[in-house]
């Protein structure tokens, strides 16, 4: 390992600009002569637009334009596309309604975009928006899954009977029925996976700029995947060819999936900038973020686990309804299907699994990826159910898991729900976690808590996740409408420094550091002489961006492939300079050496020769040292691990305090352990947030978003959380050159069930059998009162 190479806890390159206030986020950018956009949003969950009166707004000094859905339609603007098609059980395609960026006739959720005011100042745009009078004819609405599933429920779309977008299945129903028929015991559970609002601390923002001289557009936007936005907005919404559209996603203040989607505002500001021939800037208020950023989760499920008399899992049957919101967001349909039900095997060798998922429209914000995206929903359901089965059969919750784990020599393992796991060691992660958590000492701690009148419980989860969704052709056959490869360029500069261009996008993950570690390890180039460039379609090769913990396992591997090309070409150049055979030249510590001799040239000299090719094999080799690779993975990667949570509950108040939280994760090879640990901390916190604090709530009667600000939506704060104990246990991914798996979402996936299993454990002696999420003090207090009579 070199000082700053693979495995080193290198301090981050990007930090200097962030800690000194010199980061450049979208709202920090201002373009000459720019206008400010204020979006007028529907205050009603469902209504017909009878008319829009905006003369009073237009007459205000400083107001330049008020534009509506009619103007967009007149300009031939298309709808926001969905990036993943799902087929029904009968093979027919899902119902896919149109999604105009500005609603022309009907609004379908509180926050739906209706019109935009453009003004010289932000404050004027805001004041003018107050003077736009939209005449709504209110229609009945259904914001929740239960309301939308009810008999004679209000229809979100006329062509989606019963509000069903798709009715999908996976697995073998007959084999699963057979497994249940032979079961000694069946455990079942009803799960509500609560709706969440991602809440990256940087609100979304976008600046559209049209250059009439060149007939070119630039969009600055808070995106995790600028090329995806270019493709979707250019080809489907605004009909702008790629070479005339540049997307810049500069520093982005967190994403967590919510900045994957192509949003209406991106199209609105880009389109409007040409209409008025001035740059147009929009920045969301947090209130707008709550009602317009794609939400996450929101499932209702019933699940049953069939067990033998010895506690072997025989079969798993799951029915899920998933809330998709009013429109199909970019990857909305993929989340509760291929990113959810395919993970229901978990870490277990359950031989038969069958899952049905109904995707439902409701009058609510579109639902899409939120950290984990489908995998936390699967893990939460499975790990709650396994704990319940343990309790019902009297088998220890650790023992029942061990008994059913896929054994270490069982890889590759084909699950009954499409995935093939390549590697893992679930027993080792569990053992390591038990030890670090001092699981043996739990009963003593429980007794100590009891002396203080507190109820202590312990819970665990053993999770699996699938990262770096791939390969493209398989994903395409399953409905993906895009490729899932990544690109990377290694550009060696004439004096030997290196510019790395990546299609991945960093919005907190530290790619500028991790990717530089790969380069310094491969080429021996000084760490400070490496610069990583991302987020600008005008600079980087076509790439798919960052989501699903894919950056290292896919983007990093594209860079590894480009580095290999650089090394190959460097050896050819060095062989010429050293008058040796290419086969004899080896790359050692930043030098190219003739094996077994002291004859060597530095990598810097090779770079210089490539760009000043005076002494160079021009007849057989191009000048330059600049290589690009695209990498399409052979399979997903499968991080896995174990989380153990210990809670202490005050029975008088219902307050749950997490006293200890331990994680042992298998992320494959680790490039920067400091960054990995940070990702785990953040992921755990979001999973704990779902378990104890966060929940998006709509009012059933009015359809209003009740949790529309930080006063009502409870985000975890520093004093809500313990210090986490985290460790890793590594098995290498079998199908990429570094054996890396990914670490971005694991914390969120495993932690929610561990916390709730601990809460149920703490209350189980009182007779409490279940606990919904979030386990708020009121719910816990009520549950205790209910069993205490």
């Amino acid at each position: 390992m070199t000082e700053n190479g693979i495995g080193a806890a290198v301090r981050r390159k990007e930090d200097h600009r962030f800690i000194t206030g010199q980061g450049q986020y979208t709202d920090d950018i201002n373009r000459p002569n720019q206008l400010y956009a204020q979006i007028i949003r529907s205050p009603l969950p469902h209504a017909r637009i009878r008319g829009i009166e905006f003369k009073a707004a237009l007459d205000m000094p400083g107001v330049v334009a008020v534009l509506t859905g009619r103007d967009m339609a007149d300009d031939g603007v298309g709808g926001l596309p969905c990036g993943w098609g799902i087929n029904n059980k009968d093979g027919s395609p899902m119902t896919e309604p149109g999604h105009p960026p500005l609603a022309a006739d009907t609004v379908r959720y509180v926050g739906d975009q209706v019109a935009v005011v453009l003004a010289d100042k932000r404050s004027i745009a805001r004041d003018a928006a107050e003077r736009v009078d939209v005449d709504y004819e209110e229609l009945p609405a259904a914001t929740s899954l239960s309301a939308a599933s009810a008999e004679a429920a209000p229809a979100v779309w006329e062509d989606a009977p019963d509000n069903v977008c798709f009715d999908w299945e996976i697995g073998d129903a007959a084999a699963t029925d057979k497994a249940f028929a032979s079961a000694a015991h069946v455990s079942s559970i009803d799960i509500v996976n609560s709706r969440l609002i991602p809440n990256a601390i940087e609100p979304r923002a976008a600046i559209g700029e049209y250059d009439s001289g060149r007939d070119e557009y630039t969009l600055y936007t808070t995106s995790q995947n600028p090329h995806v936005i270019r493709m979707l907005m250019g080809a489907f919404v605004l009909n702008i060819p790629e070479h005339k559209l540049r997307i810049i996603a500069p520093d982005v203040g967190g994403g967590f999936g919510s900045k994957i989607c192509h949003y209406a505002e991106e199209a609105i500001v880009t389109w409007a900038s040409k209409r008025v021939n001035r740059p147009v800037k929009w920045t969301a208020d947090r209130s707008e973020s709550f009602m317009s950023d794609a939400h996450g989760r929101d499932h209702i499920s019933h699940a049953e686990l069939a067990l033998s008399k010895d506690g072997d899992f025989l079969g798993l049957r799951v029915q899920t309804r998933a809330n998709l919101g009013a429109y199909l967001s970019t990857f909305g349909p993929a989340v509760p299907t291929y990113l959810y039900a395919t993970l229901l095997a978990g870490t277990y060798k359950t031989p038969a699994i069958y899952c049905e998922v109904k995707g439902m429209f409701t009058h609510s914000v579109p639902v899409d990826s939120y950290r984990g995206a489908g995998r936390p929903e699967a893990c939460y359901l499975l790990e709650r159910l396994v704990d319940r089965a343990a309790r019902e059969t009297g088998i220890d919750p650790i023992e029942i898991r061990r008994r059913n784990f896929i054994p270490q020599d069982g890889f590759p393992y084909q699950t009954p729900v499409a995935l093939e796991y390549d590697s893992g060691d679930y027993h080792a992660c569990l053992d390591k976690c038990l030890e670090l958590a001092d699981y043996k000492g739990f009963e003593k701690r429980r007794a100590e808590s009891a002396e203080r009148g507190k109820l202590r419980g312990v819970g665990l989860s053993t999770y699996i996740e699938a990262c770096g969704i791939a390969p493209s052709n398989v994903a395409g056959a399953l409905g993906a409408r895009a490729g899932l490869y990544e690109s990377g360029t290694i550009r060696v500069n004439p004096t030997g420094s290196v510019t790395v261009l990546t299609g991945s996008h960093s919005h907190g993950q530290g790619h500028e550091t991790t990717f530089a570690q790969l380069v310094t390890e491969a080429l021996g180039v000084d760490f400070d002489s490496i610069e990583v460039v991302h987020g600008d379609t005008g600079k980087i090769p076509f790439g798919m961006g960052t989501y699903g913990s894919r950056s290292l396992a896919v983007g990093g591997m594209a860079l590894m492939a480009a580095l290999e090309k650089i090394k190959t070409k460097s050896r050819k150049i060095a062989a010429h300079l050293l008058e040796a055979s290419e086969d004899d030249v080896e790359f050692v510590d930043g030098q190219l050496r003739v094996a077994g001799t002291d004859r060597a040239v530095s990598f810097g000299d090779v770079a210089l020769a490539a760009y000043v090719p005076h002494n160079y094999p021009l007849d057989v080799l191009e000048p330059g040292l600049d290589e690009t690779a695209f990498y399409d993975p052979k399979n997903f990667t499968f991080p896995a691990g174990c989380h153990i949570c210990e809670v202490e509950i005050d029975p008088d108040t219902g307050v749950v305090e997490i006293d200890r939280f331990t994680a042992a994760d298998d992320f494959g090879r680790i490039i920067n352990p400091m960054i990995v640990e940070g990702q785990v901390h953040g992921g755990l916190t979001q999973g704990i947030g779902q378990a104890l604090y966060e929940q998006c709530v709509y009012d059933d009667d009015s359809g209003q978003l009740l949790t529309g600000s930080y006063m009502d939506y409870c985000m975890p704060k520093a004093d809500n959380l313990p210090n986490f104990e985290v460790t890793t246990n590594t098995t290498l991914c079998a199908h990429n050159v570094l054996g890396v798996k990914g670490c971005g979402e694991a914390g969120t996936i495993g932690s929610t069930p561990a916390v709730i299993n601990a809460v149920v454990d703490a209350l189980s002696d009182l007779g409490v059998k279940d606990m919904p999420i979030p386990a708020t003090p009121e719910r816990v207090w009520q549950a205790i009162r209910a069993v205490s009579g």
Partner: protein
Amino acid sequence: MSITVSFTLNGESVSAEVDNHTLLVDMIRDQLGRTGTHVGCDTSQCGACVIHVDGRSVKSCTMLAVQAEGADVGTIEGVALNGNLHPMHEAFREHHGLHCGFCTPGMIMSVLDLVQQNPDPSEKEIREWLEGNFCRCTGYQNIVRAVRAGAQAMRS
């Protein structure tokens, strides 16, 4: 109605014409061009906009620009000491107290006030002090670690 507001920003005299309803954070960002101070919410809860006014941390989204007339205002851009990183800067970097960096300026401005009032804060005191600062990335653990280390470095 517009009003001219003047104050000292990071030791330098500044003034700008603002509307009477202009928030201090908007004046700092939009008119004075110091974009290190961020806006993450509209209900005074996230803390991304924390700055110093007359030596105390305040949420600059919760003050009108006119209220800063004549004040001594400090933002994240003024924390570096003669071009060198402040010990609290160093601590955040050393202990990985940031991911996306968006909440970081507000965090640093906030905890500098804490350390000024309490040079050796305990972990519990730090966690309680940060009640007004959201971070969605880090889980706070490394922020707490950074603040303890930064405070220690500032004491020595």
